[in-house]
């Protein structure tokens, strides 16, 4: 199980690079993972070309959920919103570099769910966003 807590995850959990909030912002969304009580909010500023210019996450929860949010926000800097919409479960797992069982997968994917719900402009986050 040392894999689950590889250095990158602990490091990003303790010293996140993108923790914070943006006000004003162009996109903001938040949701919970009922299993662990994780909470994630993601704020984005988008430039005239439709690319992500600035991004932050805020919230609380397990190391997996928080590190995943930090790595995810980092990975979308400069990306178009269309590209963000195409992100999948596998992209997040690649960022984390670990394999997860069904329970912890929910922790890892909360940030992707929040991000995509925000970019799609949905009223509510849905597991549909992270199915693929």
């Amino acid at each position, binding site marked *: 199980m040392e894999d689950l807590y590889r250095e990158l995850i602990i490091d990003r959990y303790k010293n996140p690079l993108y923790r914070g909030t943006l006000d004003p912002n162009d996109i903001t969304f938040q949701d919970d993972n009922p299993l662990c009580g994780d909470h994630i909010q993601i704020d984005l500023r988008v430039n005239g070309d439709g690319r992500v210019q600035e991004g932050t996450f805020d919230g609380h929860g397990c190391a997996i959920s928080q590190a995943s949010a930090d790595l995810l926000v980092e990975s979308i800097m400069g990306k178009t919103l269309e590209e963000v919409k195409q992100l999948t479960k596998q992209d997040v797992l690649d960022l984390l570099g670990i394999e997860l069982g069904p329970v*912890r997968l929910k922790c890892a994917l909360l940030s992707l769910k929040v991000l995509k719900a925000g970019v799609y402009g949905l009223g509510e986050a849905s597991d549909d966003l992270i199915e693929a």
Partner: protein
Amino acid sequence: MKPINTDEIRADFPILRREIAPGVPLIYLDSTATSQKPDTVIQAMDQYYRVYNANIHRGVHTLAEEATAAYEKARETVADFIGAGSAREIIYTRNTTEAINLVAMTWGRANLQSGDTVVLTEMEHHSNLVPWQLIAAERNLKLEFIEVTPNGLLDLDSYRKLLQDHPKLVAFAHISNVLGTINPAKEIIALAHQAGSVTMVDAAQSVPHIQVNVQDLDTDFLAFSAHKMCGPTGIGVLYGKKQLLDGMPPFMGGGDMIKRVYLRTFAPNEVPHKFEAGTPAIAEAIGLGAAVRYLQSVGMEAVAQHEHEMISYALERLEEVPGVKIFGPTADKKGGVASFTLSGIHPHDVAQILDRDGIAVRAGHHCAMPLHDKFNITATTRASFYLYNTTHEIDQLIEGLYKVKQIFG
């Protein structure tokens, strides 16, 4: 298609080696009530309890991860088996009855208003009748019924007339548990949709016996039970189109069905968990998955073909017996269910005497009292067949019926 070899199949079912009395082997002709269970199903549940018993969805320890994975894997197996587009359209319930009640109490309460019509059929099991009676009384609904013809088929002309009233819902049995009639589900559903109705299929007697594909049927809801398809009791399935499930309020409240809880309010979880409050039947879900894999390994086409051979032979032999009256259509239009009366002898007496020879049949109204009223009878004797039954067993049944007649003179 590899035809069924009953010797091989029977070896998979430990109970079929049992004797009812010394030298009297069990002849089990009551699979419509509940089927017997193969070793693989019993072992899958046993292994869960012995090796990885844990609660699901919450814990992060190894056992919890393994149990969660097995529980969710079974959901995928079921989705694949009935051709659902996504495993999230599969809701675990206790049984068919609970699945139908779930739809009545959630979709029904959200969508049915005073004066709305719900169309059922005269051949329904009580489980697809009473839930609608309950919501009808609560909401002042009109219940209408597709008529059953004297030879046990649905009268589609009466159905077309009922559809002129644009019912909100059409709910019907795919296969009758008494008559064995295989109803033209695809046609009934297409006609319902043309009239703007939502459809609910009671598939308790079809999913275990014939290939059922929910997307091909295009039904909105479909329900079935594990215990009639080689699986354990205590678990059933509600299939629903995701768009409908998403729009429905929760069924029961409790753990696992919530996203967030405050002292006075809560936010519901997503489907399927929204409808699965509390610790579910974990071992049973795993057993259901094993049952589906067992049926898939045999092949549903082979199962259906074998049962067709059984019912054809059974009807032919039953007709030879003086005083026997069989209910329902001819073998080409029915599954492996033969309900009959024996002139002047009550079905309970028939069943009791057959039991002496180890022959298990069901006697009574089979949870379909209105259908028996329709045919002016109080009860029938029902012999039903599954993949493990043989023509030899049917011969034993016929011999038993002659004994019954002899005793009653």
